[in-house]
């Protein structure tokens, strides 16, 4: 089976994740959509690694996972912090920097 199918699937998932980031207002759901986009790029890395016959792509996907885990930890801590002060998880609420 041609690995380009996997790349096309990853493009689909990336697009769906991008729509989720733009459309949803709940900060946690936006964050999950970002995770979906990261996972889609990982799938592309893995498929490209197989296409080119070396393991570098898999190593890069592994590092992406590490960075994603660190990002989730810090991002969720920020969301909890904003929720504590504003009592809301909506991304429309923290607009104080606008003024």
């Amino acid at each position, binding site marked *: 089976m041609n690995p380009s199918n996997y790349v096309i*699937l990853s493009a689909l998932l990336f697009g769906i994740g991008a729509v989720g980031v*733009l459309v949803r207002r709940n900060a946690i759901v936006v*964050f999950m959509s970002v995770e979906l986009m990261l996972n889609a790029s990982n799938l592309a890395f893995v498929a490209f690694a*197989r296409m080119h016959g070396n393991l570098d792509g898999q190593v890069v996907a*592994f590092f992406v*996972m590490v960075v994603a*885990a660190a990002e989730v930890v810090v991002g*969720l801590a920020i969301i909890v912090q904003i929720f*504590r002060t504003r009592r809301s998880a909506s991304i429309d609420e923290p607009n104080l920097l606008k003024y």
Partner: protein
Amino acid sequence: MTGMEVDTGEAVVFWACAILSVLGAIGLITSRKAVHSALWMALTMINLAVLYVTNNAPFLGMVQVIVYTGAVMMLFLFVLMVVGVDASDSLIETIKGQRWTAIFLGLLLTVLMVWGLGSALAGIPSVGLDAANREDGGNVQGIAHLIFTDYLIVFEVTSALLITAAMGAMVLAHREHWQPKPTQAELSQARFLGDEHPGNRPSPGTFARHNAVDTPALLPDGTPADISIPGPLLARGGVQPVDIEDVHAIEEADSL
């Protein structure tokens, strides 16, 4: 096993997992409740793990299951528990037409990527990872070889990143007590000086047909008392509507 059989097997796995993961992704962005979104995302993650394994990446497949469906999803659900169940989306658009513009642009991006990648990758043959995996005796050994030789500095920097992230989360989650903790006497005074009734709240189901927690207590005139319902139930919308027969029954009992 011949190559043909492996190919059909992989095609079956690919199409099953591809359909399920796209379904999970669409469920993730369309679910009204954040908890449902998290469960849809778990579905997508597990299917992606299977796809990694079929792509000759068993190590990444296992890491995906452990890190994403294990740690990251647990963290998401934990934060959802802290933030509360009423963290649903507001439907008011702060920027006019943002939703449809975003959906249109997202579709455009998807079509562009699928079309571009599809045409760019059409004639490229796939080398396959069998030789690369055999070189060091296996997939895990091969990745370990790369991480501890070519990518050693990146790997070391990763540890710094993880420590910084852990420190950052601790600093962000830490709450400083600026005022001394209120004593029991102060709490009691605040309770009696406040506007709220200082006594117990009515228990759910009082004068109503059932005494389950999702049935509001009825006031003397038959209207439901929202104060008797636990807050999370109100937020989740799981409160039973008041049966008008209850009100009539109370009126009848009153007239006797």
